[in-house]
């Protein structure tokens, strides 16, 4: 074989890998069969804690192997590896779930096989980020809001609007996440402060609305100390006083308060964006029965409460609220467990922006455009 052929063969081999075939799951199962003995999961760190995994293994005989992912994008990448049959399920957040559905990486599930599903808060039974035209592609798990975090000593009076993130008053002391989905936060603020733009859903933006959000973020840029990439970055910034106001998660506030930092958080009057996670089953799952058993298990009130307290988020199943209070007094109210519809509706949950808007037209900016705009914004 001549040298030319060796190189050609190597290149051909390198190019063939991504071309693995895609097939689709068939009709929905009507009952859960016997467990296959194994279950391979991709999860957020802390979502498969031994406190509720060990009893599950004992009860079902399904041995759980979990791989922790650091970001939604890593989850999507892992789900596609090796033709997609390596993992049975993933705890996808709303900004990853649509990508997995449209990429045919996950399969529809029969929610009637999940006894606790009917107890879920109505908004999480068939949310837009995991249910398409009435077909369920997973079972909701937990949720939480993206909050406005501020230093109680230096930011007075306590802010009630996201406008503090866009006003020069705290120039050089503002921090927001380094994430394209942050464009939705600007859009949410604009939906209230500039109603003439007609923004209904901060994830469905036509080019005019999108450009207005980008213009607002450009105006915000000189005020920013740092776009934080890791939760620990924001914790450091608030601890050292390099930032006094920023967009955050409840987790940072809990950690900072445990460290006795003078911070508080709020959901401003414009509402907030938020995340809602879903257990989804791979389109090529090798252990579907164990996956169904797992989805049923993590929906039960006890496991929902344990996970909510361990991670600092809110259960989809309101029957978990009394259990939370039993485990840690007052925690149900702290995490808005069983929140009222009005609180829930004030939160716009993350979902992947796609070109097909709710209005039936294809004029919305898709996620690739969001990402490129974000990169160019940071410059």
């Amino acid at each position: 074989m001549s040298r030319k052929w060796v190189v050609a063969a190597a290149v051909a081999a390198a190019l063939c890998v991504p071309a693995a075939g895609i097939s689709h799951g068939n009709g929905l199962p009507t009952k859960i069969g016997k467990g296959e003995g194994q279950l391979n999961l991709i999860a957020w760190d802390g979502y498969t804690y031994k406190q509720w995994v060990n009893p599950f293994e004992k009860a079902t005989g399904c041995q759980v192997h979990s791989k922790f992912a650091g970001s939604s994008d890593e989850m999507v990448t892992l789900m596609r590896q090796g033709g997609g049959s390596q993992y049975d399920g993933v705890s996808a957040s709303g900004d990853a779930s649509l990508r997995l559905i449209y990429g045919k990486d996950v399969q529809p599930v029969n929610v009637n096989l999940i006894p606790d599903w009917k107890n879920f808060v109505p908004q999480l039974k068939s949310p837009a980020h995991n249910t398409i035209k009435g077909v369920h592609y997973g079972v909701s798990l937990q949720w939480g809001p993206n909050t406005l975090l501020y230093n109680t000593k230096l930011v007075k009076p306590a802010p009630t609007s996201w406008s503090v993130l866009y006003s020069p008053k705290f120039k050089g002391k503002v921090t927001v996440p380094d994430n394209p989905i942050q464009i939705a936060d600007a859009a949410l603020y604009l939906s209230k402060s500039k109603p003439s733009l007609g923004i209904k859903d901060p994830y469905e933006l036509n080019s005019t609305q999108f450009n207005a959000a980008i213009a607002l973020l450009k105006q915000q840029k000189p005020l920013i100390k740092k776009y934080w990439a890791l939760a620990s970055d924001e914790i450091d910034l608030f601890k050292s006083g390099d930032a006094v106001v920023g967009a955050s998660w409840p987790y940072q506030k809990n950690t900072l308060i445990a460290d006795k930092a003078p911070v508080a958080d709020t959901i401003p009057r414009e509402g907030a964006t938020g995340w809602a996670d879903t257990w989804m089953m791979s389109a090529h799952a090798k252990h579907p029965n164990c996956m169904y058993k797992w989805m049923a298990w993590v929906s039960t009130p006890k496991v929902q409460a344990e996970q909510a307290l361990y991670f600092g988020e809110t259960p989809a199943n309101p029957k978990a609220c009394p259990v939370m209070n039993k485990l840690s007094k007052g925690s149900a109210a702290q995490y808005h467990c069983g929140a009222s519809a009005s609180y829930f509706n004030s939160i716009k949950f993350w979902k992947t922006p796609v070109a097909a808007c709710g209005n039936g037209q294809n004029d919305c900016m898709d996620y690739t455009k969001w990402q490129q705009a974000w990169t160019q914004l940071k410059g």
Partner: protein
Amino acid sequence: MLLLAPPLLAFGLVYLASLVALFVSSFWSVNPFTTEIEHIWNVDNYKTLWEASAYRTIALRTIGIAAAVTFADALLAFPLAYFMARMASARTRTVLFIGVLLPLWSSYLVRVYIWRLILNHDGVLNWTLGKLFGANIGIAYTNWAVWLIFTYVWLPFMILPVYGALERVPQSYIEASRDLGARGWMTFRRVVLPLALPGVIAGSIFTFSLTLGDYVTPLLAGGSSSQFIGNVVYDSVGISNNVPFAAAFAAVPLCVMAVYLLIARRLGAFEAM
């Protein structure tokens, strides 16, 4: 010859083939709906790179900071390397060598985080400045911080080749220069510096290319305008799953390095490594 075959084959497959794959994939695109790669040939990625001013700014920032880091490292490394190679006793030299190499044994991340603590709003630097002059500087989370940290982190990679080049300057040349009436400065300028220059260029290849390809320091210690080429590549792969665009942007530092290496070869850097 037989012994050489496995490493050569590995080099060819792992290194060159992956570069070819990188180049080829930069002419593909992703489906915006599913973010899956579509194997349709086009030059859209390069067009975006050329047309959007943000990417030009990012490329120039990366190259500019890499050059500034290289310059600062050369200035810092030369006197130290000169002292180590030509003036220090054997014992002092050993101590200095250990001192230069020791930081390389600790994690890169740890060193970046330590600098972040030093430069913080209420960090050691501002505390000291406050005690001494009642002043403080806000370079935390700026490009200055990025430059400073890179200069610190890559300094050993400059010191070692410069030391090697200086050590190889024969003592007899310097004596001959003196015999011919050249003073210390003249000898340094006309004899030592030209002979040591290939070492500086060799060191600059390391400091320049290491800075050019890095994305961790800008991510952790940079401010609101500190993106490097590496950060855009990382985000394109990690966030939007747009591997073709990442490949296209990754081709830019490759071209910069190719030009740099050609110039370095002209200046005799490869003989000094």
